[in-house]
């Protein structure tokens, strides 16, 4: 399939699995475009007096008659797919690795008697604002294996797209 269709299908899958926030960030990045430097050449017309003061370019590119200025260009289909693939790795592979690291930390603290329960919970001061949530510390083997497999699958694609 082409890159556009691959992007659309993966985007849809992410949304189906409640990862809308990831897709939103990808779309935001794509909307912003890729920042590039563009060589702006001076016009042939010779400005006079004050006009010249205002428009004069502060820094010229060596060997050219212009200067580099910032602009954005749209991401290509291939680049858009690369952004989505990178976001999938960031959240589902690296995000899970982060959880695993917290599991190790909490288990170690519990074994050392530094805390009594293997639990890491986040709570608002006012429970009415948001319910508490816990970092999953149950060593979810299925999730870990799926995440490893995902990392393997993403690698060749990342190689092709970059």
């Amino acid at each position, binding site marked *: *399939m082409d*890159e556009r269709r*691959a992007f659309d*299908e*993966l985007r849809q899958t*992410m949304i*189906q*699995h*409640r*990862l809308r*926030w*990831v897709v939103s*960030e*990808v779309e*935001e*990045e794509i909307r912003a475009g890729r*920042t590039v430097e563009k060589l702006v050449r001076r016009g042939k017309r010779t400005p006079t007096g004050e006009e010249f003061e205002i428009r004069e370019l502060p820094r010229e590119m060596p060997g050219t008659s212009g200067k580099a200025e910032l602009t954005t260009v749209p991401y290509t289909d*291939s680049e858009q*797919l690369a952004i989505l693939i*990178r*976001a*999938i790795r*960031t*959240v*589902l*592979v*690296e*995000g*899970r*690795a*982060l*959880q695993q*690291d*917290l599991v190790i*930390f909490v288990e170690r603290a519990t074994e050392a008697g*530094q*805390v*009594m*329960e*293997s639990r*890491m*919970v*986040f*709570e*608002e*001061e006012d429970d009415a*604002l*948001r319910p508490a*949530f816990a*970092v*999953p510390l149950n060593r*979810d083997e*299925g*999730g870990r294996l*799926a*995440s490893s497999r*995902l990392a393997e*699958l*993403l690698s060749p694609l990342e190689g*092709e797209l970059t």
Partner: protein
Amino acid sequence: LSVADDLINEIKSVVGASTDASLADHLQASKAYEAFLFVTAIRAAEKEGASVSYQQIGQGPAKQFVFRTSPGHLYSTIKPYTYAVLDFPSAPSLEVHLDVRVAGKSSVFHECDVAVLTQQEAQRSRSERVAPRSSKVIAAAEAKFYAANLDLDLARSYIGLISDLSAKACCFATNITSASVTRLLSQNQSRVWYDFVVPNSVGAQRLGVFFENAFHRFRATS
């Protein structure tokens, strides 16, 4: 470029199994990231010879790790939030807190995702019910966990924050990178930042060294 149908289909089938509630919610993922930075600070302290214990506000030794979902006052006793106590040989004790407000130079509150401060100042904060002074913060880290888009405003906020903090060392740590953020923060050496800070990465090592250096300096000058 044509992408193999099989590969995309297999990725699609594995995405569901790789997802859980904590990854499907940006807030939960961000909070786990702050906790990861907290852990990085603790590990750096241990490397520098500290013995570590955990306390829960108002309850003594910690039963479990309870952290804030949004920034709060260090002295608040509404919830038994957990903090670490670092005891170094021949140096005053330090405390590590997540998501607390400190007082800046201009007497306004600033939020620190990870704040390492002297225990003396933390105790003063709890007994007087006042925000700790940023001059007593020996290291602070801003944690930013994003999937794809690291907004330039985050870097601008960080620049504003460090201009009003008297903390000995501040840094901006992110799990991804951005050309604009990198460019802006690289303009000035006081803007310490680390990108790609994820487990087992060069970024995480750099952040660890940042905390180690802060502890080392503290011990040397105490």
